[in-house]
């Protein structure tokens, strides 16, 4: 019963829950603040080498800045002042960066699990991978919004840019890694085996993180996906919402992570308590001399014997009748 008391106590402490709530609230506030700043105080940057240029002059309707803010012709190039792709930048980049960070965390927890064999670290590795999945999907959703605004290749008209752009394919491979991790977990039986295999795979899969980060920076062909936003310098009015959004997303991600870890720990505790209760129940019934299952089987045996007896008597009756 001491386990049950511990369980009840851990609910009264509620420490994880408090941290989660505080982090989630702060994260939500910061992200919202970044959202508001992105649409109000951030200046439009339209230099050719920054990420914020919509360089194709097709009609993009509501995705463009109002006509009053158009800069027009500059040094021989016709620019359209970006509007939507400028805004999505503040969310897409932090989510993508954090997805790589959380993926790395999963690998680090995998290493710690292999060194210590402590199932807690397997749990952390798994939850980090779950958080990676959330961030990866978020990156892909915001990225496809940006694609529509900036490259004119929406999901409606899958252009060659979208399918052959190295960064997008590399990132899709990373999503496949995350999915493969969970497929592997599903198909291995036995807790320790499952934990070991998935830790090994998480470590091996980490190779995609430096590859994804460096690939577009090292090769020439990757011109379509912007990478040099920070190098070319951001306007302070742009940098502020960007940094605020990074912190907000970090807090939200950490809140998700802590909440899930606490939930899983509670679940295992609950399973343990169920087992102890079942054990004590069966012990108690054994002490009485009659087990619940024994009662059932005894009833079945009784039924069968009575059926047999009745059929026997029926047979004998028919025999009697025949004679």
């Amino acid at each position: 019963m001491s386990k049950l008391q511990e369980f009840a106590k851990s609910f009264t402490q509620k420490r994880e829950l408090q941290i989660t709530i505080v982090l989630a609230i702060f994260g939500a506030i910061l992200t919202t603040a970044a959202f508001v700043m992105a649409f109000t105080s951030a200046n439009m940057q339209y230099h050719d080498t920054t990420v914020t240029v919509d360089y194709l002059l097709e009609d993009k309707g509501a995705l463009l800045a109002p006509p009053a803010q158009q800069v027009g012709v500059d040094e021989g190039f016709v620019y359209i002042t970006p509007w939507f792709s400028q805004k999505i930048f503040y969310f897409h980049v932090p989510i993508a960066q954090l997805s790589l960070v959380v993926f790395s965390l999963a690998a680090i927890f995998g290493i710690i699990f292999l060194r210590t064999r402590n199932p807690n670290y397997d749990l952390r590795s798994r939850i980090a991978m779950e958080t990676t999945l959330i961030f990866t999907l978020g990156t892909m959703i915001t990225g496809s919004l940006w694609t529509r605004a900036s490259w004119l290749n929406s999901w409606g008209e899958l252009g060659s840019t979208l399918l052959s752009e190295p960064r997008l394919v590399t990132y899709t491979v990373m999503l496949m890694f995350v999915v493969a991790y969970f497929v592997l977990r599903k198909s291995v039986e036995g807790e320790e085996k499952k934990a070991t295999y998935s830790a090994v795979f998480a470590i091996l899969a980490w190779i995609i993180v430096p590859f994804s980060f460096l690939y577009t920076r090292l090769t020439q062909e990757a011109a379509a996906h912007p990478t040099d936003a920070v190098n070319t310098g951001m306007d302070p009015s742009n940098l502020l919402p960007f940094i605020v959004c990074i912190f907000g997303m970090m807090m939200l991600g950490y809140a998700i992570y802590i909440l899930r870890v606490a939930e899983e720990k509670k679940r295992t505790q609950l399973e343990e308590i169920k087992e102890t209760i079942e054990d004590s129940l069966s012990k108690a019934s054994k002490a009485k001399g009659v087990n619940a299952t024994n009662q059932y089987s005894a009833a079945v045996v009784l039924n069968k014997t009575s059926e047999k007896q009745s059929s026997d008597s029926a047979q004998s009756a028919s025999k009697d009748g025949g004679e």
Partner: protein
Amino acid sequence: MAKAKSTAATRSNISGWRQYKALLKKDIAQELRTKEMVTSMGLYGMLVLVIYYIALSQAGTGFDITLIAAGLLLLMIVFTSMLGLNRSLIHEHDQGQLEALLLAPIDRPIIFLAKATTNFLFLAIVQVVVVPFFYVMFVSSSPGIIRGDVDPGPWWMLALILFLGSIGIAGVGTLLATISVNSKGRDFILAVLFIPVMYPLLLVLVAALTAVITGGSGFEATFWQMCAAAAAYNAVVIAVAFALYDYILGV
């Protein structure tokens, strides 16, 4: 547990090299008796070539196959090697060989090295047979080569790329095959794990292969760059696989 194994090995005075040779001999003897790995992989490779022939049969005479030949060749190698890797540990698993190996005084890293070597050997044998067929069927008959517009690099360059690729595939594949053979959906799990891990290597290999097959001015620079990248990838990933193999045996 691993420590106990290694002390047992040193106590019985069997050097690592002799253990390695014994394991290699075991696999090769098994293969010589059954001939199942090389036959099935070679046959599968040839069938993939037949499918390529069917797929390209309507492409017409003007189609320049040298641009995609590298990709086709690599696809064939990936499929064939996945088939081989799937089968490579079936006996170990189904007949309890792996437990026997773990009981024997053998260092665990040597089990990995021996298995990776046999996988590499079988893959190399199959490639020696199938790649010339591929060259004759597709590349040598392409209009660019016949007219002399396309000037492929020397054959040893092709061999070097395939060698690097096979090392990477065999090294990582052995680790992943050991994982997948112990899971429920064997073939499927191997494909799901193998292709994402191989993705950077395959990109590099296809760049090097295209450089060699299409030739042209200054293709050597691309070739050596890509070979260096493939070698670096192999070194990193095989070192990781080697270090991790200890953990997945016998859990």
